[in-house]
């Protein structure tokens, strides 16, 4: 960290603790001290509280580790060889990185939607029912599938062709199918890693509307490269930046606040520059 920069957070606590708000509605309490891929330090000092039924956006320039932070929250990074994590991520009062916690179980409670639409090469119905089967759901599958497709605003478009391949849909439809697949098992938290970056503006708009609706029922964390998107949908926004002073490219959280505050009155010079569009 260069000495010219103002301190990242006030001395009395971390910047992410917002005044006049209780901490007991935090669903996922993410506290990354250091995160390594092999010997590469990818992220440091990032504390982000993710609150119930809210949308939290992570923004920042390319390579700042915002996707890495997101993937930390459901242990997807465990699939990367050489991944090492110091800190804690608390969910339902337990550190998901604690000894004896099964990453597979974590991912069932904390679902994920990816950057590229990635439906399986099977029917639309089977795509949505996949998670139900995994979880050994014994009830009415067709009902759950319909509910998930309705919640993902896809039902009317696919109700007559549930047996068609998921790959036959358009890009935007495929992404909504992936959202339906992720929410079919009703996980508490939904992580979305740049869910609109492969979509056209109209499809993007639909997904954004969908996110706002889904936040009634789910808690959502989203990574986005699109500042307007974060401004439109997110209740809270965290800005991450790359620290190159120590030789590597290590991402860290610069500022976290209500989206309104962060975009209208950014406190940190880096955030101000980024929001003004001076770099991206």
């Amino acid at each position: 960290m260069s000495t010219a920069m103002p301190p990242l957070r006030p001395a009395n606590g971390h910047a992410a603790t917002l005044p006049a708000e209780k901490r007991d509605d935090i669903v996922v309490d993410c506290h990354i001290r250091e995160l390594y891929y092999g010997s590469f330090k990818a992220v440091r000092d990032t504390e982000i509280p993710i609150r119930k039924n809210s949308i939290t956006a992570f923004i920042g320039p390319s390579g700042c580790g915002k996707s890495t932070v997101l993937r930390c929250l459901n242990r997807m990074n465990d699939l990367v060889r050489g991944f090492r994590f110091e800190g804690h991520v608390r969910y339902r009062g337990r550190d998901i990185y604690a000894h004896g916690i099964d990453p597979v179980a974590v991912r069932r409670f904390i679902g994920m939607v990816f950057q590229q639409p990635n439906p399986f090469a099977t029917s639309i119905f089977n795509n949505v029912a996949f998670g139900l089967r995994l979880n050994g759901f014994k009830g009415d599958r067709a009902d759950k599938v319909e509910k998930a497709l309705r919640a993902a605003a896809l039902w009317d478009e696919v109700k007559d062709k549930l047996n068609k391949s998921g790959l036959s849909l358009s890009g935007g439809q495929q992404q909504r199918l992936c959202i339906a697949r992720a929410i079919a098992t009703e996980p508490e938290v939904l992580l979305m890693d740049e869910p609109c970056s492969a979509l056209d503006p109209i499809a993007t708009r639909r997904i954004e509307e969908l996110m706002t609706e889904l936040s009634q029922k789910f808690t959502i964390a989203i990574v986005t490269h699109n500042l307007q998107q974060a401004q439109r949908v997110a209740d809270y926004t965290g800005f991450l930046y790359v620290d190159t002073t120590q030789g590597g490219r290590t991402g860290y959280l610069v500022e976290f606040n209500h989206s309104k505050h962060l975009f209208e009155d950014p406190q940190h010079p880096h955030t101000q520059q980024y929001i003004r569009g001076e770099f991206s």
Partner: protein
Amino acid sequence: MSSAAPVAEFPTSSPLFDARAGEVTQAPSRGQRIFDAVFRKTCHTFAWLTILLVGFIVARITAAAIPAIHTLGLGFVTGRVWDANAGTYGILAQIWGTIYTSVLALMLGSIFGVAAAIFLSEGFLSAAVFGALKKFNLHLKPVTLRLPDQLERLLKELIELLAAIPSVVYGLWGIFVVIPLIRPWCNWLHAQMGWVPFFSTDLSGPGVLPAVLVLAIMILPTVTAISRDALVSVPPKIRMAAYGLGATRWESLFAVILPAASRGIFGGIVLAFGRALGETMALAMLVGNSNQIKLSLFSPANTLAALLANNFPEAGPKEVGILMYAALVLLAITLVVNVAGAFILHRAALMQSE
């Protein structure tokens, strides 16, 4: 090219524009155009030559077989007795032996081949090696960093090396190693469970089982190499989707990755089946060359390829025609298998994109 050429074709007769002085961009030169045309023509010629060659081979075999087809007719394919002295020729037993040994070898080879492909493509080995290195805190050293992947590649190449062993060596190995090794077990099985059709005879030497075992090893590299390629080319995003939904490694493997790679794996199995049907030398040495149709794994049998190899040396003009007829039948079987395989693959592709 004449002016009647389709509009879409690149003009080869004159440059599109006259290059201005000092301009770097140029229309293709005369030399480039000639080279392009010659290259294209050469490729065409060789492609057609290959097709012509196949046609020529089939035509010559058919021509040589025509006298035998006239005299023996379809009875040749349905007859069970091959007795050159009595003048009776039937190849049903050989057809049975060909298909029976190939199918059994294919089942065995596919199970082990696909299992090996999974082991070598899904990172089981490299994860284990990485874990072991990590215990000694060696996993980030430059020397050992790439060791897991290198080991995996080494193993893959070792399996592919199985394809480089000559067929006659496999035959010898079968006679001197496999048969003595399995004989006591086979005879024990026959003694204990002789009522099971598969164990209804004893193994006195060459027979179906040793031939099947060796054949399975021979087709293993084909199945493994092609299946591994298919598994590796399953897009990572599909794997991530399965893991992201909370699937375990096995769940994602069986529910997502294997189905996505199934077409490639099936293609490999069809190719291996073709190889098994035509395999000659090892089978001629191991199968026993006895014309009988039995379910028993331990009885000797015969295959079309072995029949051809064994009978050509002392065949007169009439026998050559008959053997050509048998060769034509073998050709037809492999053709049917390949066409059926291609058809199933095509249907699977259609169903996946629908």
